[in-house]
């Protein structure tokens, strides 16, 4: 019993930096952890990776994250409702490959190919949503299934890369840097990604739909008894997530110039979207999370990947690092949740 006896003479009112109201407000912000992590990672690479602190690198990071960034918006919605969407990377890959294939090989009008390609991603989202709400299957199982289905369909459709040509210029527009008066501006896809975040942030904060997503995530039965159409909300969440993966697919083919059957697989960020969402502070327990947090999480993943690349680390090891990161982030979530 002696181990619990100690004098109770801790100082009570001593003024420290931690008592400062501004410091307190910053510390209590849900974004504190993720922003701090982003700064730490950036500082680390500023010292260790050559050329990290340059406009080029910054532009490179943004270009690299725009695909995962848009996927992560959909994933955030799903995770806030206590779900998870394992199919996101594969659906994105399938959607991109189809868009490229329909335009290049089938010879469809690129705009029509684009609509069909994105449509497939939306259909996959709606399928996930229907299975989760209609039959009441766990999201993990449903999306594990559709992940494999999307992967297989992708391979059945094509096992070789499909290169976009000048005839498909509209499909490359989003990924092509803009040259203006000798200056090279980043590609418009980045603007599209940021715009998507603004829209998503606005929806979550200023619309009834956004509120409903949080409500369903906190307690689906209480939300139903509060008069929300919970099934429609969940179906909407998964469908919008599918749309996000479709838009991400357009960014993917625009950036690389090819429909790639390997797109969306492990080394190419299948799980990066989930990692980014969790690092960004969205709780796997549902009801809690923000689009701004996810954007920060996406940047952390992007900085890590780019920084490691600049240091000459193999992609395999980058995957290893993001794996460790996601476990760390979920642990933090679990520990704070318990408190």
């Amino acid at each position, binding site marked *: *019993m002696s181990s619990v006896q100690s004098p109770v003479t801790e100082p009570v009112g001593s003024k420290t930096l931690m008592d400062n109201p501004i410091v307190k407000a910053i510390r209590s912000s849900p974004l504190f952890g993720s922003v701090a992590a982003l700064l730490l990672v950036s500082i680390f690479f500023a010292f260790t990776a050559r050329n990290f602190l340059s406009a080029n690198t910054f532009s490179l990071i943004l270009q690299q994250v725009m695909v995962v960034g848009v996927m992560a918006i959909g994933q955030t919605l799903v995770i806030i409702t206590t779900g998870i969407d394992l199919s996101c990377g594969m659906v994105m890959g399938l959607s991109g490959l189809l868009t490229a294939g329909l335009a290049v090989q089938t010879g469809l009008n690129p705009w029509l190919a684009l609509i069909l390609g994105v449509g497939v991603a939306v259909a996959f989202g709606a399928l996930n949503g229907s299975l989760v709400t209609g039959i009441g299957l766990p999201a993990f199982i449903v999306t594990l299934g559709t992940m494999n289905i999307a992967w297989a369909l992708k391979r059945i459709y094509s096992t070789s890369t499909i290169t976009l040509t000048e005839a498909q210029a509209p499909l490359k527009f989003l990924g092509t840097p803009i040259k203006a008066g000798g200056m090279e501006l980043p590609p418009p896809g980045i603007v599209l990604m940021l715009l998507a975040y603004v829209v998503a942030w606005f929806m979550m904060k*200023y619309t009834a739909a956004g509120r409903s997503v*949080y409500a369903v995530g906190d307690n689906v039965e209480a939300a139903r*008894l509060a*008069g*929300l159409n919970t099934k429609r909300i969940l179906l909407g969440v998964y469908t919008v997530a599918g749309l996000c993966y479709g838009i991400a697919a357009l960014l993917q083919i625009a950036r690389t110039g090819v429909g790639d059957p390997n797109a969306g697989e492990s080394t190419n960020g299948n799980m990066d979207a989930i990692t980014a969402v969790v690092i960004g502070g969205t709780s796997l327990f549902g009801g809690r999370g923000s689009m701004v947090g996810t954007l920060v999480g996406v940047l952390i993943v992007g900085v890590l990947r780019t920084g490691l690349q600049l240091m000459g680390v193999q992609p395999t090891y980058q995957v290893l690092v993001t794996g460790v990161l996601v476990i760390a982030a979920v642990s933090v979530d679990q520990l704070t949740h318990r408190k």
Partner: protein
Amino acid sequence: MTEAAPGRVLLEMKGIGKTFPGVKALEGVHLSIREGQVHALLGENGAGKSTLIKILSGAYTRDEGEIYFDGELVDVRTPADAERLGISTIYQEFNLAPNMTIAENIFLGHLPTKGGRIDWAAVRTRSRELLDSLNVNLSVDTLTGTLSVAQQQMVEIAKALNRNTRILVMDEPSAVLSEKDIEKLFAVVRRLQASGIGIIYISHRLKEIFELADEVTVLKDGRYVATRSVAEVDMDDLVKLMIGRNLEDIYPKREGEPGEVVLSVSHLAQTHLARDVSFDLRAGEIVGFAGITGSGRTEAVRVVFGADKATAGEMTLFGKPYSPRSPKDAIRHGVALVTEDRKRQGLLLKLQVYFNMTVSGLDRLRKGGVLQLKDEQKLVRKWIKDLRIKTPGPDFMVVNMSGGNQQKVVLARWLSLGIKVFILDEPTRGIDVGSKAEIYQIMADLADQGIAIIMISSELPEVLGMSDRVMVMREGRIVKELSREEASEEVVMQYAVGHAEAVAG
């Protein structure tokens, strides 16, 4: 009341203080427990009872004050510290693993080993002894998930006893029990008391305190008010200490006459639980639904609210056929339900006060599809003020609020919607006297405004004090309708359990 010889002082808490961001939860609170004493801890919601016992059990750490155990200064910082001292707490939400047996739960985290292997024989023998000492006739191999609430509570007590408990804290142990189970619980508490364990007993039911406790400590607004010997006080004294007002004033007087029939329910059934329910509800009246747990009251009103589908029967609302497809549909028709399980079905616990208040009426706060957050803030602040909700602000998470304040948040949600039929299922369960009185007043005001109210309650004084008419349900049927004058505790109880017909032939 037990005339136990006063034992040694086991535990003393002196000048305990605790501050949360924005709230001073406790300040200068004292509590002193002797061996073999039942010490009641009394106070309104938000008085600081929960915070105090969480400090004692190591769930929170205090900011100020000292704790002495057996006369020695100790530091309780973690649940493990409390456990080493022999302080066990039984919370309202039990902490049992549903897929494990009673024996496994009793020994969870403390499994004895023999030669490197778990000594299951010892586990089962000791568990059997513990259950026997509590007069529980259950196999130690029963899965706890299959037990009734009362039985689970006994397993929690057995678990505590297995850890050489010297102080047992019970947080509203009777709130979830039926009358019969409460008697059993009391017998167990008295036996523990006789064995020298000090018991801290938290309850909202004053009657129980007079039946069980030796001493009572009253808290109010996080401060210590008084400690009294139960023999020296009466109920009025305690209520005055708690809220500073008299008990008779708790049920508001109403004058208004009931108006037109608003809701008419005929031969409603919902599976085998509600079998045949017919009644009319008039504008401006409060109809109380009495009956024992499982008599089908909740099942019937859930159909009225569209939460479940009827299996038979018809309803009309304002003379028109009414069969809500969903709660959303019911709300559109002006029908609202305050659920009996506030935490699981009523509130979005981890979301904020403002969120919970406006979640059902977001379409009223929209302009061109955009939520007007400023209007929302205004509305929410108005309700916080009007209903006297204790919260640091609209952004406070409801999970951190007391039961009474949580219930007011639920009420505010519906009040801003222009509801015509208001159904309240156990509206004051787990709520202290002060908040109860406020909720009764709100209900009375609503009735005076012409809103038709159905109140389900298992507390007979509440049913009798609030209702214009009383419907008694038994086995899925309304067996008797009583006017305010006819209704008394005896008559209602007789119909509720089925004696009345037997007497009347």
